C-alpha cells in the first residue's frame, strides 16, 4: 500500500523535471511525499496520520485560512516529564493526546516509519543496483 503510493509520488516528483529543480528541492519533495504516503496509507483512523497530512497539506502562504471550528487543543497536557514532551514533539499530533493515547499513536507511528524507511531503502538499493548493472 505504502509502496504503491510512494512509487506513484516518486514518479510524480520525477515528472516535475529532473533538471529543473535542485536535488535539495527534490529531496524535500521526496521527503514530503514519503510522509504523505505513509500517513495516507496508515488511514484516517490514526491521529498522527491525520495531523501529518494536515501539516503537509497546509502550505505556508496559501492564503487566508478559514477559521474552522477545529478543536485542536483539547487538553494540552502539562508536560512535566521531559521525555513525554519530547515524544509529543516527535509524534505528529502528539500535543493534544493523553499519555495513553500518545503511546499508542507512537507505536503505530514507529511501525509506519520503519516500514517507510525500509521501502525507501529498498528503492534506493534497487536503484543503485540497477545503475550499477548498467
Amino acid at each position, binding site marked *: 500500500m505504502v509502496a504503491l503510493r510512494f512509487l506513484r509520488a516518486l514518479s510524480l516528483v520525477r515528472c516535475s523535471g529532473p533538471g529543473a529543480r535542485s536535488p535539495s528541492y527534490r529531496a524535500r519533495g521526496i521527503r514530503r511525499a514519503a510522509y504523505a504516503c505513509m500517513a495516507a496509507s496508515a488511514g484516517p483512523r490514526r491521529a498522527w496520520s491525520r495531523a501529518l497530512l494536515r501539516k503537509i497539506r497546509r502550505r505556508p502562504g496559501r492564503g487566508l485560512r478559514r477559521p474552522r471550528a477545529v478543536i485542536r487543543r483539547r487538553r494540552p497536557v502539562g508536560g512535566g516529564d521531559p*521525555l513525554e514532551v519530547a515524544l509529543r514533539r516527535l509524534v505528529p499530533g502528539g500535543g493534544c493526546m493523553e499519555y*495513553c493515547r500518545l503511546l499508542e499513536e507512537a507505536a503505530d507511528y514507529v*511501525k509506519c516509519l520503519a516500514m517507510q524507511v525500509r521501502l525507501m531503502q529498498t528503492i534506493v538499493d534497487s536503484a543503485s543496483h540497477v545503475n550499477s548493472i548498467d
Partner: protein
Amino acid sequence: MKENKFVLNSHGNGCEWQFNTAAMSQMSQSPYLSASIGEGFSPGHWNHSTTTSTLNLGLGESSATVNSIPVGKPVAVSPREMLLSTAPKLPHFPVDSTFIERAARFSCFGTGNFTGINFFGSSPAMASSNNEGFGAQIQKDDLSENKAVLLPVDHESFNGSSMKKQGDGNSQISVSNGESHVNFPEDGPEGNTGSTDVALDSSSSDLGENKRRKTALDIDKDQVQGSLQFLSQTTTENIQNEQKVEISSKQSGKNGKDNSEVAKEDYVHIRARRGQATNSHSLAERVRREKISERMKCLQELVPGCNKVTGKAVMLDEIINYVQSLQRQVEFLSMKLAAVNPQLDFGGEGLLAKNLLHSHGGSSSATRFSPELMYLQAYPSQHTLVHTGISAMASQSDTFRRTITTQSTSGYKESSMQVQQMHIPWNEELIMQMVYSANPSNPHMDSKADGFAI
C-alpha cells in the same frame, strides 16, 4: 429479644440498622461500611440467611456491648440457638449482597482498627470477657475510624474484621454455616480455625467476581458511602496490605492466581486484586497504569533491542531515539533518492500495472479501479509488490527511460500533483476497503502487516 429485634430490623430494612442509642448508631455505620464492601460480591455466594443471622448476631453482640447491656453475654453464650431460632425467621434476602455488605462493613470496621480490635482475638473465650471491651473498642474504632473500605472487594478486611467481630461466635458460626461462603474469614494471625479457613476459601472465591454497578443495594451503599466518604481512603491500602500479609499464604497464593487469571474488564467491571486498594480513584489509576504499561510493551516490541530495557524512563528514551533516528533516515534516504532518481525511472506506474496485469491476468473489473487497486488485487503482499515493481522497473529501465522523457513533457507541477495526490488518499482508502472486502485474502488495513502497514 433484643437480638432478635436487631436481627429483624437489619433484615427487614435491608441494611437499615435502627439502633436506639447513639453508640449503636455509630455501630450502624460499620454495617453500612461492610455492606458497601460486600456489595460487590455476587449474590450467588451469599445465599444463606444463616449467615445474615450470624452477622446480625455479631451486630447485636457488638451493639449490645456498646450499650453496655449484658445482652451480649447471652448472645455470646448461645449464638447457636440464636442462629437456629432466627434463621427461619429471617426473610431470605433477594439480594444476598446485603449480607455481604454488612459483612463487609463489619470487616472494614474491624479492618480499620486492627490494632484496636486485635485483642478481641478469635478465641471464643475472649468474647464474653471482652464484651465490654467490645463496646469500648467499638466506640474507639468508630471515632478513630478513618479506614473505610469503600469499594466492594475487600476480602481481607472483611475477613479480618468480621472474624474479630464475631469473636466468640466464630466457631459456632462456622459450624452452623459450614457451607456458607460468607463466613467471616479469619484474619491470619489471629488464629485460623478450620472453619474459618473454609470460609476464607469460599470468600476468596468471591474475589473472582466483579463489582456490580448498580443494584438495589447499591443505593443504600451509595448513601452510606456518601456519609462515609470522609473516612480515609489512604489507609485502606495499608490495611489491605496488612491483611494480605496476615492471610495465610496458601489462600493468598490461590487467590492471587485466581485474580491474575481472571481478566479485568473495563470501566464497567473492575476487579480489585487482592491486596490492592479498592478505591474508585485508585482503581481507575490502576487501570490506566496497566494500559500504559501495555502500550509500553507494544512499543518495546517495535523498537529493536529494547527487550532487556526495563523502566519507563529508559524505554521512553529509547523510543525517542529510535523515532528520531527513523526520521533522520527518511531524510537521508529522500536525499539519496533525489540524487539517484534522475537516473532511475519511476514513470512506469502505468507500465508496471500493465506488466503486472499481463503477468497475472488481472480481471476486467479491475479496470475500473486505479492501478493501485489492481496491484492490490494481484498482490496481497506489499512486500512482493515492491520487489516485483522494482525488479520490473529494473528490467525495463530502457523502456522506462523512454516513457520518462515522454512523461516529463506532461508539465505537471510537482506541488500541484502532490496536492492532488493528497486529496486522493482517503477516497482511495474507501475503494481499498471495498477491494479488501472483496478479497478477504488481503490483509486488513488495520491488522498488523508483514512489515507493511496497510
